[in-house]
């Protein structure tokens, strides 16, 4: 008698859930992005007058899209660099406290803050009449709110950078601390030391590269999340230039109907870029998994 082990097959509830997932989540997004694309080339919507690349050429020629894109990419990149560097420093210098001290609990507190609250709190801290300005006044460093440097709604997006970094840095510190343990980084550093490396060389050439390599995918995902952030730049950013999500929403909600295709152009440019970074992150994850 031939006995064959049954391979697990998908049952009706799973097929139904999968179909529902495609129907309720994937299909509306695909349809909406398709509609947005057709809208921008004049084949759908109230402004459809036949195929035209007018919206695209107009937006690509105008500086607003590229300034906004550049600002978003720059903010996301700086946040990733600052959070990674700060997280590395905290994790390497305070690993013991993070693993078994109160710091291990306190570092989770910023992770509980939604972007809306983070933006609000950052404003209350960094605004010209905020807490830091009051402290500076008490210490005699400034004579009043006007003397305090502009840290919110400023041209360098410092408030946005501070808010995002304050949320991401504890996450990276906790991530690096976990990686130090799971990747047995100490043992590789010990091997390097036993082969004649100095403590600095072991740190620079073994520990840090190992941690950064393993954290590359979360760093890429953090980049995408900051790139598309809305609440923090809305509260702490300037009217111009605006980050991509804020620009998209502003163009969409204007009464001028001619701005709607432009909103879709910004949305599609952002979507294409975010999906490319996501694909890169997933490829890295798969490569790590198979490596």
């Amino acid at each position, binding site marked *: 008698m031939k006995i064959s082990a049954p391979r697990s097959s998908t049952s009706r509830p799973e097929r139904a859930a999968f179909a529902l*997932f495609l129907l309720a989540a994937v299909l509306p997004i695909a349809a*909406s992005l398709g509609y947005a694309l057709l809208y921008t080339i004049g084949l759908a919507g109230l402004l459809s007058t036949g195929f035209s690349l007018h919206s695209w050429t107009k937006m690509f020629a105008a500086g607003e899209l590229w300034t906004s894109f550049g600002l978003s990419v720059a903010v996301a990149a700086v946040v990733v660099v600052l959070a990674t560097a700060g997280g590395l420093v905290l994790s390497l210098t305070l*690993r013991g406290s993070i693993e078994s001290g109160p*710091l291990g609990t*306190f570092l989770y507190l910023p992770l509980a803050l939604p972007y809306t*609250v983070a933006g609000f709190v950052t404003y209350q801290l960094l605004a010209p009449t905020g807490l830091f300005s009051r402290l500076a006044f008490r210490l005699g460093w400034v004579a009043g709110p006007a003397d305090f440097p502009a840290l919110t709604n400023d041209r360098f997006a410092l408030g946005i950078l501070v808010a995002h970094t304050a949320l991401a840095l504890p996450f990276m510190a906790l991530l690096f601390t976990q990686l130090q343990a799971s990747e047995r980084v100490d043992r590789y550093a*010990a091997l390097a030391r036993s082969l004649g490396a100095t403590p600095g060389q072991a740190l620079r050439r073994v520990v840090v590269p190992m941690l950064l390599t393993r954290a590359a995918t979360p760093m890429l995902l953090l980049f995408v999340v900051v790139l598309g952030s809305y609440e923090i730049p809305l509260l702490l950013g300037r009217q111009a230039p605006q980050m991509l999500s804020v620009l998209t929403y502003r163009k969409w909600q204007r009464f001028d109907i001619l701005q709607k295709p432009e909103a879709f152009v910004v949305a599609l440019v952002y979507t294409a870029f975010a999906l490319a970074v996501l694909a890169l992150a997933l490829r890295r994850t798969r490569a790590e998994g198979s490596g």
Partner: protein
Amino acid sequence: MSISRLERPPSCPSPGSNLPPPRGKGPFAQAIGQARRIGAISRGALAAGVCALCALPIALLALLSLAARWPYPEIWPGEIRLDPWRELLDFQHGGLPRVLGASILLSTVVALVSTALSYLAAKRIAAHPARARLSLLAYAPYVMSPVVLGVCLLYLYLKLGLAGTFPGVVLAQTIFATSFGVVFFLGFWNEEKRALEDLVRTLGGTTWQLYSRVLLPISRGPLGLCAFQTFLISWFQYGLTVLIGGGAVQTLPMKVFDYVNEANLSYAALASLLLVLPPLLLLWVNKRLFFRIV
């Protein structure tokens, strides 16, 4: 020689680990001991400073929610009042309790629907030959800006008559929450679970028995975790709710923005504290689970 068998030489401590006291009593050993003590003190000071910075936002929110008057350049509020907190308990007249109730209802529905859907859909995707491509589909909404996607989705919702309605907001938020859930459960449906399922089938178990007696009991923890996380995704959502809800569906993040625009800082801080409460509760229950979630 296996790397894992290597022992760390005494001269090569791990970063941040506690070092043994130096042997001997010579001037060199004393200097090393002093340097280590200074290092430990400065690390302690750094840790204390980081702890204070991490707690600062919550402390500031608590102070702001109680401050009746806090003029520049005062460091502390000039006058404390409990009015916003009292109104929180006034369910008949207060606007905040109503919004709080609506937020809880909205997030609970999104959490239940998206967890159930993603649990089953992820099982199908995990066993699918095109798993890699389907994973990308699941990841896409999860990492993308809700506002950008919301702008694109709005036309569809308007056509379907869902814009400005509670079910519309639930559906829109479920898209993002389900994507997260699918990503969350993809790792759960591994070879081990497949082997268990094969075993149940081999023994003649039905689909109902497979779920009720094997899969659901072992999934209780992940299901709870996913439900809480999807609750938080909905709980924190602002841009998408504004776009799809069109102001007709009010949630706590929207109230924070409303109060900020009205320059009503006490109520903005109180609404912010209410927003922070569920994740803090989770942190209190289990911080390791929290890290996996966030």
